[in-house]
């Protein structure tokens, strides 16, 4: 009665889950999901059982206990009476500080080297090739250690600056009008002081200096004013074709108010002087920090240089030729035509270099710079014996830092990417 092409619906059979393309992808997804969840459950169960067997519990209350140890480098006030949580924060800020400085320096190095590597000057471009190939092909840990070794071996000990009473001379002398003293532990540099400053607001996080807030506010105001001046110059240029001279106005606006405010606050440099074992008075920038910063910057800089070079080469040669035809000079061509287009290619891989640099900063432990790994993942972990908690917390923090960098850079990427209309 029924035709062969119109078979009756046979009902659902189990084998359809595999052989029927309508259901197969769903089956695969469900099975994968179950397997992944089973794997996660097994890991958690295993951990809980092992912890039980060792008689250990899982809690983070150790963070509120007294830390009891001292930290060499600190950006916010910290004593050994503070909690482990505070010590963790000190370490986190040290991580962020070296990462931010490292990313900035690596970008500058990378852009300069990347552009110069494409230079028509044979010597310059070959030198840059040597730089890139040397630095990116040797592990960053070695660069950090080499930097530290150089800083330690080439500089005198602090007591070499002590004046020998017999000869009336010191074995080493300070640089730049006796204001900077490089030693094998740190470089002593002058610190900034305001003799009649405004004081600071005490917050539980860190004291905020009102002096610096005021100067920052003045700077922001100056920059805004400068933009107005330039905007006006543009308008005049558009209307009359002649651009009024702005450089002396800009200079006056940007520098003048800040200098006036700083002088009003009683700005002076606090020069370091040798007292007892070490320099006091100024700021001691530890060699560990400089070595880490330098090592991370030159290493990542080499990678960024290649990314920049790739980005520039990705811009069609016709763009350069067109710019030349319009009479633009080579450096204007680079900054106005090539780089803005190259940024679209450069930014996404640049993000991953920033992430790498930030994560590589955990190598700080090799030179004794107290970053997050050194405080939370090092001393706190050791003194409290909370391995699982400390490591999980550290992983979470690094994850958050990386996601934040990634998010910020994606926002930036959206502003430079090709606008499709």
């Amino acid at each position, binding site marked *: 009665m029924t035709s062969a092409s119109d078979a009756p619906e046979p009902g659902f059979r*189990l084998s359809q889950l595999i052989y029927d393309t309508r259901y197969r992808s769903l089956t695969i997804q469900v099975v994968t999901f179950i*397997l992944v969840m089973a*794997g996660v459950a*097994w890991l958690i169960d295993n951990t809980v059982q092992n912890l039980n067997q*060792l008689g250990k519990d899982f809690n983070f209350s150790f963070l509120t206990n007294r830390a009891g140890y001292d930290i*060499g480098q600190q950006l916010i006030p910290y004593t050994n009476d503070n909690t482990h949580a505070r010590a963790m924060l000190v370490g986190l800020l040290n991580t962020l500080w070296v990462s931010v400085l490292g990313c900035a320096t690596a970008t500058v190095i990378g852009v300069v080297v990347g552009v110069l590597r494409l230079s028509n000057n044979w010597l310059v471009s070959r030198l840059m090739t040597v730089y890139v190939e040397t630095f990116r092909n040797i592990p960053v840990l070695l660069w950090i250690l080499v930097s530290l070794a150089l800083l330690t071996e080439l500089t005198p*000990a602090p007591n070499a600056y002590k004046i020998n009473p017999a000869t009336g001379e010191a074995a080493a002398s300070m640089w730049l009008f006796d204001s900077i003293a490089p030693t094998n*532990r740190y470089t002593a540099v002058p610190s900034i002081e305001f003799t009649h400053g405004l004081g600071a607001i005490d917050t539980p996080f860190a004291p905020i200096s009102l002096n610096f807030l005021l100067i920052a506010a003045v700077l922001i105001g100056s920059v805004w004013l400068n933009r107005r001046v330039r905007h006006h110059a543009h308008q005049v240029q558009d209307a009359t074709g002649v651009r009024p001279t702005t450089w002396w106005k800009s200079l006056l606006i940007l520098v003048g108010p800040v200098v006036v405010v700083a002088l009003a606050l009683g700005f002076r440099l606090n020069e370091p002087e040798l007292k007892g074992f070490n320099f006091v008075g100024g700021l001691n920038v530890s*060699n560990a920090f400089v070595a880490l910063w330098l090592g991370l910057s030159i290493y990542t800089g080499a990678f960024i240089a290649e990314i920049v070079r790739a980005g520039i080469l990705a811009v069609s040669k016709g763009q350069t030729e067109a710019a030349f035809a319009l009479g633009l000079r080579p450096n204007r061509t680079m900054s106005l035509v090539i780089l803005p287009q190259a940024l679209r290619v450069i930014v996404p891989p640049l993000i991953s270099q920033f992430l790498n640099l930030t994560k590589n900063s955990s190598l700080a*432990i090799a030179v004794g710079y107290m970053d997050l790994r050194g405080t939370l993942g090092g001393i706190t972990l050791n003194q409290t014996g909370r391995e699982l908690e400390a490591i999980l917390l550290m992983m979470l923090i690094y994850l958050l830092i990386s996601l934040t960098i990634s998010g910020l850079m994606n926002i930036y990427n959206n502003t430079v990417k090709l606008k499709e209309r």
Partner: protein
Amino acid sequence: MKKSVFLGTLAVAGLSAGIAAASTLDEVKARGELNCGVNTGLVGFAAPDANGNWSGFDVAICKAVAAAVLGDASKVKYVPTTGQTRFTALASGEIDMLSRNSTWTFSRDTDLKLDFVGVNYYDGQGFMVRKDLGVTSAKELDGASVCIQTGTTTELNLADFFKANNMSYQPITIDSNAEGEQQYLAGACDAYTTDASGLAATRAAFADPENHIILPEIISKEPLGPAVRHGDNQWGDIVRWTLNALIAAEEYGVTSANVDELAKGTENPEINRLLGVEGDLGAMTGLDKDWALRAIKAGGNYGEIFAATIGESTPIGLARGLNAQWTQGGLLYTPPFR
């Protein structure tokens, strides 16, 4: 039909979380080797020679335990551990026992789930400085840069000492004794602080030991001893009583030279019980009756080990001091063997 495919795959996921719960003694016997955690290199306490043979005061404890349990003092695998990795290595089962000049403290014994089985060296934290610095007391170290091994009790003592004396310092954190030695010699720190015995051992390895002094202040109590995992009491007993056997052997005058002679039987019932001539103390811990005999033969009694590794005739030159027998005015006092 094809359901078996799914069931098979699911069965893989259904792994049980079973963990081997065999006792440490059984594991060591089955393995035929004792995994002993030692220092990465501290001359006199634990250091490998040019051929990779380990020797030292802490190493001797490993050898004695291996001799007692396995019958062969050479069947030890030495696992070098840093101040940071030692307790994790023990807790994870990578090593069976830790003999690495580690301080016995309350929190390590309880919260870290370790069991310190005794004290093999009564120590205290000291400071070493260059002689030409002109410093004669630790109280003159205000403002100094101090090298300190991270993850140790000395780190906390240092903070306490400087705080109590209202002084400031700059901590230079280092990871191992070798790094500390290098940093100190390079002048990255004015003073190096660790256990006084460790300072003496470190100084002995210098090219110019006479230009460095160890300051008189001892700022803490550091009872150093071997540790095992908490929970396996039988294994803890074995390590504890092996150490005690070495100490008791010195007290009773049993040496590696006369132990075979004495094992034939003596007038002293205490020695007879120790060496297994009388009673069967070994069986009570799961060993045979010659366990202590073998432990003593491995490197001699406590006094012999001390003299051979860190004593006054060695470059390290440590006096017995607190580590003399209680009969000699020291603190070594083992519970009776009965």
